[in-house]
Each structure stands twice: as C-alpha cells, then as structure tokens.
C-alpha cells in the first residue's frame, strides 16, 4: 500500500497543498486534473525527484520520505518517454538491472515483457528510430523490469494518435492484470481512465478535490469543478432552478449537505436530458427553443434556451433526425429526479 500523507510543496510557479492519497497494493489508481494542476509534480515528489516541504510518503508501511530516488524502488514513465538516446532498446530496458542486482529472474522477466509488449524486433534499434507507440512500450518495459513497488505513469497517452492510444491502453491493462504492479497514472483526460483505473482522485490547483471509484466520481461529483471535469454539461445555481421547479423533496433528501450557507448547484448530464416535440413523461419538464445543434456522427449536441436556463442535451443521431430538430425550433425538454446532482460550490 502506498500512502501520501499531507504532502505539501511549493515551487516558484506552483504548489501542492496538503495532498493525501492512499493506493492499495496492486491497484490501478488514476489522478485526474487539468493541465497545470500539479500532477507531474506530485509524481516527481512521490519518486523522490522533488523535495517536499511537509508530509510523508509511506510504501508498504515504510516511511520513504527521506530516501533518495534510487533507494525507493519507484519507476516512472514520462509523457515523452525519456528513453536514453545513447543506448539501444535492449540496453534501455536492462538499464535498471545494472543497479538492482537483486531482481529475481530478470532474464525471464525481460523475455516476458518484450513478448507482452511486442517489441522483440526492436531490441537492437536506437530510440530515435522508434515511433511514439514503440517508445512508450520500451519505456514501460524499462520501468517494469526492475519490479518496482509502484509504477508512475505521467500522461501516458497524450502524445499518441487515437489508434495507437487504444492499443497501448489495452497493453497496459493486460500487463497490469498480469504483473499486478501498483500503478499511479496521471492524466487530464477522463475518458482515458474509464477502462483502466479502479480508483480516481481529482486534483485542481494543487488540491485534491475528490477521491473515489470511477463510478462514484463520475456519477456524484462533489464540487462544481469536478462536475465540469467529468463532463457534466448543465450546472445551474440551485436558487435559480428552485424558483422554477419545486425541489423541496430533493433538498429534504440532501438536508445534511444543505447547511453552512455555501452556494449549491444543480448538475445534470447532457445525456440525461430528454428532448421531444410533445409533452414528455419526465419528472420535470419545460418549454424552450433550440439555439444550436451539432452532430459528430456518434451523438448530436442540442442547446436549448428556456426561461430558467440554457441547457445542453445529447441525443443519438437517430433520435435527432426523428425529431427533425433545427435551430429556432420550439421543443419540450425534461429530466428525471434521479439524474439530478446536488453540487456544492
């Protein structure tokens, strides 16, 4: 188990504030945050590459906070892979074994990794002759051959094209289920973690906003920021909406949330909003007028202006054509009670 306790560090251009995380052995944990939210910094701090001002890092019960990077047994794979340009692929992969003599069965582990990642024909090449996906695989093999206690992945897919990304994602998943290496991945893309991670944490401006299972964070974001980040398109102040609808029972249910005087918001996913030409059978509904439509082939996005707020809804292309939607067309818009999220500021 890896525990990060109350970690703080300040750099001229950035700070991490009181970050605490706990990752179970063998777990695939994703840290999500927009670009510039301090994710890479946190990884480097865990690996011992950046000095921290306060806090503790504990790996399997052992406090490693004061240990040098080479004493921690933590491997890191950077966004740009950072392969050693002066070494062949084979030498890159085996580099760590020069220093970690106690890795058991290094030879067979080498064969296993090379085979799983499909890089056997690249072994004598130099990094500058490899594609992005190939470099990524070599970097993974190099990081995993030393049997690290944790594998840190820094935006592993951001530099890959869509097809390669999918393949590498599958490979990482396969390798993780085979080796069960505890993994902490950082990314700014929520969709990247869906198939991979068990647990996620959302970080914003150096502060952890929410930690939980993917489902939990996706379905019940606890702040406006997280809600936006996980793709909640419709977020309105509760007061504004309560004037129009009677949200009394909703408020009753969430009574324990609703004190302290902080501002509350109502959040609705675009895919949970129903649009129709006639009255709908949803818990709440209202009339509006379409202000914009766009269609990307997989889903259609419809923006609807109503008296209470401007909504965004996702429809299947089929439904979209069925309803003959167009700009300036009046429509009915509805949603159900179960899909409403009450969000704190």
């Amino acid at each position: 188990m890896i525990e990060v306790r109350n970690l703080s560090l300040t750099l001229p251009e950035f700070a991490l504030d009181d970050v605490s995380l706990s990752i179970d052995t063998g777990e695939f944990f994703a840290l999500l945050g927009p670009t510039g939210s301090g994710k890479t910094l946190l990884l480097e701090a865990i690996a011992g590459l950046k000095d921290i001002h306060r806090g503790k890092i504990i790996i399997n019960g052992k406090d490693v906070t004061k240990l040098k990077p080479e004493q921690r047994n933590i491997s890191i794979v950077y966004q740009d892979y950072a392969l050693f340009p002066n070494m062949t692929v084979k030498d890159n992969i085996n580099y760590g074994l020069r220093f970690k003599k106690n890795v058991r069965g290094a030879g067979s582990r080498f064969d296993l990794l090379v085979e799983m990642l499909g890089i056997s024909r690249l072994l004598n090449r130099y990094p500058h002759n490899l594609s992005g996906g190939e470099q990524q695989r070599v970097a993974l093999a190099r990081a995993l051959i030393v049997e690290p206690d944790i594998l840190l992945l820094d935006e592993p897919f951001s530099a890959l094209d869509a097809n390669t990304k999918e393949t590498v994602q599958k490979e990482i998943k396969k390798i993780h289920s085979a080796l069960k290496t505890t993994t902490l991945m950082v990314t700014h893309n929520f969709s990247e973690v869906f198939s991979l991670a068990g647990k996620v944490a959302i970080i914003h401006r150096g502060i952890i906003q929410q930690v939980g299972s993917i489902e939990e964070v996706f379905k019940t974001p606890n702040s406006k920021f997280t809600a936006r980040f996980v793709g909640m398109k419709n977020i309105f102040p509760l007061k504004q909406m309560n004037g129009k609808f009677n949200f009394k029972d909703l408020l009753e249910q969430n009574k324990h949330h609703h004190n302290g005087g902080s501002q509350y918001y109502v959040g609705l996913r675009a895919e949970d909003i129903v649009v129709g030409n006639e009255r709908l059978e949803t818990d709440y509904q209202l009339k509006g007028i379409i202000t914009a439509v766009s269609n990307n082939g997989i889903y259609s996005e419809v923006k609807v202006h109503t008296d209470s707020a401007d909504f965004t809804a996702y429809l299947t292309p089929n439904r979209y054509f069925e309803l003959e939607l167009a700009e300036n067309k009046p429509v009915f818009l509805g949603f159900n009670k179960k899909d409403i999220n009450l969000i704190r500021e």
Partner: protein
Amino acid sequence: MNSKVDKLYLISALLGMLVILFIMYPITNSLFTTDGEILLETLKEQEVINAIWTSIFTATMTTLVAFVFGVPFAYFLARNDFKGKKLVESIIDIPIVIPHTVAGIILLTIFSSQCWIGRFLESIGLEVIGTRIGIVTAMLFVSMPLLINAAKDSFLSISPKLENVSRSLGATHWQTFMYITFSIGWRGILTGMILTWARSISEFGAVIILTYHPMIAPTLIFDRFNAFGLEYSKPVSTILILISLIIFVLLRIIARRGVAVDRST
C-alpha cells in the same frame, strides 16, 4: 536547374565568398610563398621546436585544467536555479570582453609580490611569472569561458527527465552523470575543449605579459618579427598554422565520428 535565381540568396552567397576568401587567402598565401627549404631549416632550430612544443603542451594543460574545473561547474549551472545565477553567468563571460593585454596586466598584478597571492605562492615555492604555469594561467583566464559555456549548453540540451528516470531505476547521482549525462553530452563538451585548446594556442597578449620566457610560438613569431622583420618570422607562422590546422581537423573528425557511432543502428 532552377532558372529563377533568388536575388537575396545570390547576394548573400557572394558576400559569403568574400568572407571565405578573406580567411583563406592569407593562410594559403603564407603556405605557398614560404620557401620549402627555409621551412625545413626553421623546423630544425631548437628554439622553434621548443616554442611550438611549449605552445602545444601549455594549451593542452590549459584544456585539461579547464575541463576539471569547468565541466562540473557547467553541470551545476545547467541543473540549478539560484539567486544571482545571471550574475555568476555574466562573471564567467567577463574574460571574453577584456582586452587580452589587460587580462595579462591584472594577472601579473595579483601574481607579483605586490599582492598577497603572489607572496603566498612565492612562499610555498610556486613561481607563476616567467614559467609555464604563468602561460597556462594566462591561457586559462581567456579560454575557460568557452568550455564552461559549451559544456553548459550541452547539459542543458539533455532533458533532466533522463536523469530522473535513471535515478528512479536505481542509479546514484554520480552513476547517472557518468552513464547518462556525460555519455550523451560528451560531444558538446569535446567541442568546447577544441575551442578552448584553439583559443589557448592562439593566445598571445595575456601570455606575453605574464611570461615572455619560456616562449610560446606566438611570442617567438612576435620576437623575430620585432628583431628581424617579416621574412624571418613568416616560416614559424606557417609551421604554427600547419600544426594548428592538423590538430584542429583531427579533433573535429573525432567529434564527428562520435555523431556517426551514436546515429548508427
């Protein structure tokens, strides 16, 4: 061939040809107008052999000293930010803008018995003025910035992430420096060493003030020119040109071969 000639490129190339001519004509002229027999005669003179050997020896020593002090410092500068870093970097560049005779004068001042440093060195029996140490000192002062800056640029071009990965894989900072940083950056450092060596072998102004005897080749050339005139100093110049060019080309080839080996697959 492209029938349309770009005027800007044409003018630039013509100007460039003048530059090449300006450099190459005096050199080749010197090589071709020096009588071969006189050249051989000159090469046999003990005084000439001594001066050329002193030049090569002291320039090489200077380069080694600059390497030992300059490369670690360049690494430190490339990897650390601190208050006053800009100032430190400016200080390193000062010798480049000081006239070399002035450099000689200020060095002479501190190594003479007027200054405590000179008196201290004298007390432990280390003579600087009028010795090879004096020559190396003068050369070092004017040429060291070249090596430090070249090495620093070389280290800066290597991503610190490579070092981070190396360390997380179990290598100490020293091992990381040897296996990664230096292994990748040596070519830039070698280029800096070539520049330092070239700058040192061509140095005259600072050296002559600190150490007239033993003579380096430029001092000998100056000495002969003053005493006997152009005809007498020219053969030594030609020999120095030839030796400098040969060593320069050899080092260049080594540096380029490094590129070829690294790029091969």
